[in-house]
């Protein structure tokens, strides 16, 4: 089981990539944990998650090939 991860803004500065494939994460809590482990510099900045373009608040089950995006605070306009 793998998901697609899109990384934006200052988080992409840390991952060095804007698109990643992540395997073996059942839900968004596991994904957050895995990212914090993988990237020692994972910052204290808040970010939100969108699963298939919808922002999710609570821990959310992930399915194979879901598109998950990491959204740091917006600064358009």
């Amino acid at each position, binding site marked *: 089981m793998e998901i697609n991860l899109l990384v934006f803004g200052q988080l992409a500065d840390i991952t060095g990539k804007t698109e990643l494939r992540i395997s073996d994460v059942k839900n968004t809590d596991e994904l957050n944990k895995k990212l914090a482990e993988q990237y020692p510099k994972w910052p204290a900045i808040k970010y939100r998650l969108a699963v298939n*373009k919808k922002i999710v608040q609570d821990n959310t089950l992930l399915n194979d090939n879901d598109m998950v995006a990491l959204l740091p605070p917006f600064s358009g306009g």
Partner: protein
Amino acid sequence: MTEKKKHNVFLKGPITPAYIADSIAKHSGKTNIGAHDIFLGQVRNDLIDDKAVIAIDYSAYDEMAEQKFHEIREAAFAKYNLVCMHIYHSLGLVKAGEICLFVFVSSKHRNDAFDACREIVEQIKAEVPIWGKEIFADESHVWKENR
């Protein structure tokens, strides 16, 4: 007569005064319009830790942003009595003094245009996944955060 057709919101680089003028000129045939309110966002050369911002490099989660713009648009047409509305936002590099956001709202009477334009600008800043990287002369950067 209301016009709700979708168009691309994102433009590469700055939004030019000529582009804005063309957009205004296209409304002269819509003689039921009495009021336009136009908001323009311009890149400031803010000082951050004594370094001046020389440009902002904008990126977006395009697909989600387009969907959000569409929702904002539909909500404004449902809530206000508008004749038409256009939103344009830059992607890529926009230098200090250049324009990065162009919101253009037209209505029969002024209150609808004023109310809707302001609400749309607030929604864009709060809800649309766009990020601005503030670039300094020494090529270092910080990520902007809306307030």
